[in-house]
């Protein structure tokens, strides 16, 4: 008991320290996540009350003084009957509470998971170990594919269609909505709305192999106008290389194994086994949230992906030393 209390006291400051906007269940950023958080808090309140009561009774029971007697079998029938009634009443109360909580839970569930206005629909395909994001539209020329970084408009209902190309993954951005599995051969849906512009982090929540730990997703919530601009920019093909360095970089890209896995729209590169790099430089992270997208990190990532993310399917490519900087020039130009 006392130890527990000490533990709680010790960790509360830590908890507060941990409450940055990294990815947190209890820092909701949309109506669905708020519903979830509220449900959590109400369950927590009721259940902790019960726990404290049980412990109180236990403590009193252990400490109270009682008559001395030697024969363990010398029971008082009256007391036994009273205990029986109390236990029955408590059992009944337990039943009522759990049924009540179940109903509260079902109410929230019905609100959260009833299919609503589809709004903006995206298809998200889990890969070992990155997310492929396909923006859908009735007009196919407005569809496009990107990776790991999700731009979404605020105030618009979002529908995510989740599936997987290999093993089971689980899409989870705690500040926005509960998780939903992406399962091979099935398509799951999850709907939510974001209220506040901002950046929300999420992460694969189903063990999916060696690099399960490095399978993050970044959600950038923007105003509808910003989102629209971004979307228009994304549908454009990749910027054509301007400088000599960039041109050489494209050549490096096309003449190395890069071209076999990655797509850069507008160039002959059409690989779909790795993330689409058409607008790579517009993203903030590399390797599904493993590294920040800086020139240095990019260089490190390209020269030794296995050092940062052992087991990742990006192979160690033996670039000629002179090729690295043009390649970086080119990749950084892919706004």
């Amino acid at each position, binding site marked *: 008991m006392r130890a527990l209390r000490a533990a709680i006291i010790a960790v509360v400051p830590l908890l507060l320290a941990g409450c940055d906007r990294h990815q947190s269940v209890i820092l909701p950023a949309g109506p669905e996540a708020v519903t979830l958080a509220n449900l959590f808090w109400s369950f927590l309140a009721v259940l902790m009350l019960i726990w404290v009561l049980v412990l109180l009774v236990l403590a009193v029971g252990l400490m109270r003084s009682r008559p001395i007697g030697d024969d363990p079998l010398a029971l008082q029938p009256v007391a036994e009957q009273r205990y029986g009634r109390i*236990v029955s009443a408590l059992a009944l109360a337990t039943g009522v509470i759990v049924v009540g909580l179940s109903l509260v839970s079902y109410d929230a569930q019905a609100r959260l998971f009833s299919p609503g206005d589809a709004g903006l629909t995206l298809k998200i395909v889990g890969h070992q170990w990155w997310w492929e994001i396909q923006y859908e539209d009735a007009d196919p020329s407005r569809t496009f594919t990107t990776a790991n970084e999700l731009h979404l408009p605020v105030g618009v209902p979002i529908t995510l269609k989740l599936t997987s190309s290999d093993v089971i993954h689980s899409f989870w951005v705690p500040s926005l909505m509960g998780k939903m599995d992406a399962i091979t051969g099935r398509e799951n849906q999850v709907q939510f709305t974001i209220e506040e512009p901002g950046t929300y982090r999420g992460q694969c929540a189903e063990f999916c192999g060696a690099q399960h730990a490095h399978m993050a997703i970044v959600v950038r919530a923007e105003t509808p106008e910003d989102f629209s601009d971004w979307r228009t920019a994304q549908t454009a093909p990749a910027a054509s290389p301007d400088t000599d360095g960039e041109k050489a970089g494209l050549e490096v890209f096309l003449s190395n194994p890069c071209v076999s896995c990655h797509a850069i729209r507008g160039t002959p590169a059409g690989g779909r086994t790795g993330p689409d790099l058409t607008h790579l430089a517009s993203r903030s992270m590399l390797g599904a949230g493993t590294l920040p997208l800086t020139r240095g990190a990019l260089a490190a990532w390209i020269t030794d992906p296995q050092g940062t993310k052992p087991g990742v399917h990006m192979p160690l490519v033996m670039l000629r030393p002179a090729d690295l900087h043009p390649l970086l020039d080119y990749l950084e130009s892919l706004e």
Partner: protein
Amino acid sequence: MPDIEGQLDTGLAPDELRARLALTWGTAGGIWGALTTVDHKIVGRRYIVTAFIFLGLGGLAAMAMRLQLSRPEANLISPDLYDQLFTMHGTTMMFLFAVPVMEAFAVYLVPLMVGTRNIAFPRLNAFSYWVYLFGGVMIWVAFALNIGADTGWFAYVPLSGPEFSPGKRVDFWAQMITFTEVSALAIAVEVIVTVFKQRAPGMSLDRIPLFVWAQLVTSFAVLLAMPAVMTGSTMLILDRLLGMHFFNPAEGGDALLWQHLFWFFGHPEVYIIFLPATGMVSEIIMVFSRRPAFGYLYLVLSIIAVGFLSFGLWVHHMFATGLPQLGSALFTASSALIAVPNGIQIFCWVATLWDGRPRFATPMLFAIGFIVTFVFGGLSGVMLASVPINTQVHDTYFVVAHFHYVLIGGSVFPLLGATYYWFPKFSGRLLSERLGQWHFALAFIGFNLTFFPMHLLGLGGMPRRVYTYPANSGWGDINLLVSGGALLFFVSFMLFGWNVIAALRREPDAPDNPWDAPGLEWAAASPPRPHNFDRIPLVASRHPLWSDRGGLLTVSGLSVDTREVLVTSLAEARPDLRETSPRSTIWPLISAIATTALFIGTIFTQWAVVWFAVPMTAVLIAWFWPKQAVDDT
């Protein structure tokens, strides 16, 4: 029927009776005796020791993981090894420690508690131990050879399927499941038959000790639940080795079929571990409150209800898989509802404590620690039963915290208490109270320091089964605290180990009934003689050693120079038969070796089934073929 097997115990002097029975029931010395014994106490003791060794190995795996996780972006352990470690940890704890240790206690204690001389089907019992041992050794040897399973103890397909888990790692895992299931099922059968048919005369159903009730219900749960995972693991291995398509969504299979089969076993599994623990708690609280457990009937009905309900909860492990919403909601209700029988048990124990005169010996401390932590874990379980909350905290450290509260708080604490409680019976020595209290204090603090902060990690968004986490996540400090707690918890177990070793180095000095407990096992010597009881007791109450202070009534007329057990009727335990009980034999071991060869062989070629079928059959025939004019079974 002519009596052809000689001497009956009727009228023998106590000393001679004891000597002759010990000769008849005794185990030969030396290696041969060790390999051939069918004595439930020897087998049970081995089981317990082996299970605790696996606990140690699983704990070491956990410590390695905590070391890696103590700082963000740590590079101490490669992801490949980390995956193997957490898989070995989960697998070992669930399949090689928790279930076997609970069954081991049953193997040791149930025959004593119901007042018989050996467990039913003792050769099967010996066989089950060998199979368990070989299975556990196999998977750890595989781990040592870098063929350790790396897909988690739940081994979800397609990750564990043939495409995404090349090599033999998962094959070993799936076969290990088969090993442990075979041994668990065998014990379940033995325990049920022992409880049904070998109770001492007069021990009617309403006089069975609560621990035995718990083991009985557990055994039924094993009988019905384990075949589910065996079906699943067989399908998995067929997919992997024969190219079958149970889990291939492209060819009509389904990845979720595995999850259904696994959790249809997996949730009852939790209760298979937990129910015996409640039996232990009931015994401990009864003895150390010095009064009968309050609400025997409530407790028994609760145990049975939990056993039933545990089969209706599996879907709450799958709330994030996109199953139909209404169906999920029903499982919310059923999952929450299991709180009622569990609550009743808690209330009964609290009532017992309230009314009793508690003695704060180490077992009692663990029982109290159990109530504190288990109620906490149970209540967070109610949260997990809610579909919406579940979608947030599922597969995060919140869940890790929850089930460690339930499994360590709910099962390991009672188990440790039970070990302190029954240790004099097992070994003839009492464990040190002082070390025991230190053990409890360190374990309780270490446990809570380890697992309570994990709730916060989970709420802070940290998923399970990650080998590292980013530095800017803000999880680093809590993780460091958790690792520190884990170290403390680990130290407490080392203390426990020291306590056990130190006790074993002393001369046996424990009295037959050091705690003044009411159960029949305390009527036997500490440690019990090979035949358990010189004369089979005649039971007239629920608490025979309390009600018959003057000494137990016994029966006579059993053979002393053949192994004979008294078979009684199911409900009232009226004496019915004098069945022979098998002698020591090597065949269970040879069968287990043949079985192991077959299981391991199939990993490498499907023809192993054919190769080993013939020797297996031969061995089984040799096992059962009568060796003497008077038949054994």
